[in-house]
């Protein structure tokens, strides 16, 4: 009988532990004493966190900032759609900011509290997904191009077609992102990377299937490391990670092919459900402050949306095309836009590519 009791008790204990664990991390404490500093919940990309910057805001604004991270736009959308998230400031990418605003998830920004918006880079003004910056303000931005090892490749890959060169079979990596990868093929074929034509998307799919035997990996997280380790000679990828890879292997270079590529920006926005909207606006203004933004770009090697930052950065970062694309390339860049129903063709083509 005694042993049975013990078992029952331990079962109950286990159950309580599970319950406690299950409850402990949910629901950020909403009610604060008036004496406590207000708390801001900041939901951002996992590689965008810089603790010194956050603590700077906490000191100047007598607030507490709780940072949580996500690793994909879809994760952010899923959480935001679930309703009362408790988050205040979020960082969606361009197209996702458009989707979230159309779904009514984003609050109107109070421009009076965000004076730093006047320093916005020219290229980032009046963007198609939010022309008046009603819901979102660009924060960090960059391009997608090819990172390559100049020691192995004598000639830089001037065209996307270089990614179809059999000479580098098994030493090419592509992003694991359907719109970006289809964008490369569409661009190489001379189409828009926002094509909604089933025929063009099919052509792109066939071109990608031809490329697959040459591709070592479709990877969005590891391509910089693959470049550093010499596993691949050419990596289709974001400029920031390529710039970071250059620090580890000096022969790595970055190029935006002549057909042009994608330009992207991650935006600061406030959730409609936020209970700290004023503080959230102040936080956005703080992140866009020239000095804070310079520190951010220096640490993360992503270009800042504040145009004053460029001149404050050390020349090796400012002149690195992986961080700041050369001026002549800007006219060739294209934003990834929502393709509405045509997304089905991309989806299916992507699955077919992966199965092939």
């Amino acid at each position, binding site marked *: 009988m005694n042993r049975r009791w013990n078992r029952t008790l331990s079962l109950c204990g286990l159950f309580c532990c599970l319950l406690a664990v299950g409850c402990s991390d949910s629901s950020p404490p909403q009610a604060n004493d008036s004496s406590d500093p207000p708390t801001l919940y900041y939901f951002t990309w996992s590689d965008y966190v810089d603790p010194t910057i956050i603590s700077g805001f906490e000191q100047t604004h007598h607030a507490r900032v709780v940072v949580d991270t996500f690793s994909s736009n*879809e994760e952010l959308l899923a959480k935001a759609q679930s309703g009362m998230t408790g988050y205040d400031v979020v960082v969606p990418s361009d197209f996702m900011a458009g989707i979230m605003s159309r779904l009514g998830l984003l609050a109107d920004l109070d421009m009076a509290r965000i004076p730093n918006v006047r320093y916005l880079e020219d290229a980032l003004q009046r963007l198609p997904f939010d022309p008046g910056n009603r819901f979102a303000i660009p924060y960090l931005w960059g391009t997608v191009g090819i990172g390559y090892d100049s020691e192995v490749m004598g000639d830089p890959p001037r065209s996307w077609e270089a990614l179809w060169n059999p000479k580098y079979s098994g030493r090419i990596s592509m992003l694991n992102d359907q719109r970006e990868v289809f964008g490369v093929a569409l661009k190489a074929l001379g189409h828009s990377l926002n094509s909604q034509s089933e025929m063009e998307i099919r052509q792109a799919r066939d071109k990608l299937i031809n490329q*697959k035997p040459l591709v*070592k990996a479709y990877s969005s997280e590891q391509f910089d490391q693959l470049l550093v380790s010499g*596993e691949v000679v050419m990596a289709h990828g974001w400029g920031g990670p390529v710039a970071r890879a250059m620090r580890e292997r000096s022969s790595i270079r970055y190029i935006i092919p002549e057909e042009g590529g994608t330009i992207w920006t991650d935006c600061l926005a406030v959730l409609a459900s936020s209970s700290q909207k004023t503080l959230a606006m102040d936080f956005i203004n703080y992140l866009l402050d020239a000095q804070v933004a310079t520190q951010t770009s220096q640490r993360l090697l992503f270009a800042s949306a504040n145009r004053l930052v460029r001149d404050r950065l050390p020349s090796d970062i400012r002149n690195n095309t992986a961080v700041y694309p050369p001026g002549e390339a800007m006219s060739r860049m294209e934003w990834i836009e929502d393709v*509405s129903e045509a997304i089905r063709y991309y989806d299916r083509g*992507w*699955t077919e590519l*992966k199965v092939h």
Partner: protein
Amino acid sequence: MAHPGRDHLPGSRRIVNRLLPIQSPFPIRVALLLSLLFWGICFLLPLALMFLVSLISRGPYGGLEWTWTGENYVRLADPLVIGIFLKSFLYASGTTIVCALLGFPLAYCIARSSRAWQQWLLVLVMIPFWTNFLVRTYAWVLIFRADGVINGFVKFLGWTGDPIPLLFTDFSVFVGLVYGYLPFMVLPLVAALERISIHLEEAARDLCATRFRMFWHVVIPLSKPGWVAGAVLVFIPSLGAFITPYLLGGGQSLMIGTLIQQEFLVARDWPFGAALSFGLMGTILVLWGWLGRKSTEQAAG
């Protein structure tokens, strides 16, 4: 023990009794009720919700639109999807077979070693569980890559050609799967083999059975419960594996797990992702029932 009149029981006991009309001591019944509750909330509720999701449509921006449709299940019949299912079954079967072949000798050694040794060996089998699976899978990336452990060793032996391509191949995915699920085969096998008396083996040997026949006719059939448990524990998770093909396969090929992940997180098509999950579950249940009936038929015949 005679039951006291039920009406005289305190209220809480009466409720528990009514909810769980089985003959067990009260504390056990409370514990059972709590675990049933837990099971219901944490397992059945999400499952029921996902089933509902699998019957509705995808919204224009990837949200859920509450119009009922069976289209998500019709899409399962697409040859593309069936191909991925078949491939995943092939991988999972291969993983199970290799795990069984590698796991049996190990389990046999552990089961037949002395008590003290046995404890240490079991701890060694379980030590990998103390580290996160993701971290351990990344370790395989370090082993397989061009300047990794294996290629470094081959180079040390005097190989001068290009590094052997190991990472991001079907081979690396397969090794990762076998590595990840081997303990799930070994542990139930040890438990089953331990229960076979050493005297039975001695008897077989005394009756002039060769070592092979002893294993084939005595040890293997008697450890069948261990084989079955191990096979299930390896087959089902490797069928839905997602981290391993993702990290070690370099996104080159799709298994069902990666396809479901893609539908949920990339295509934002939750309804189709949910239908895929239920398709997978249904296939496993049908297979399970078929195998179960076959084995009872065998036992009867």
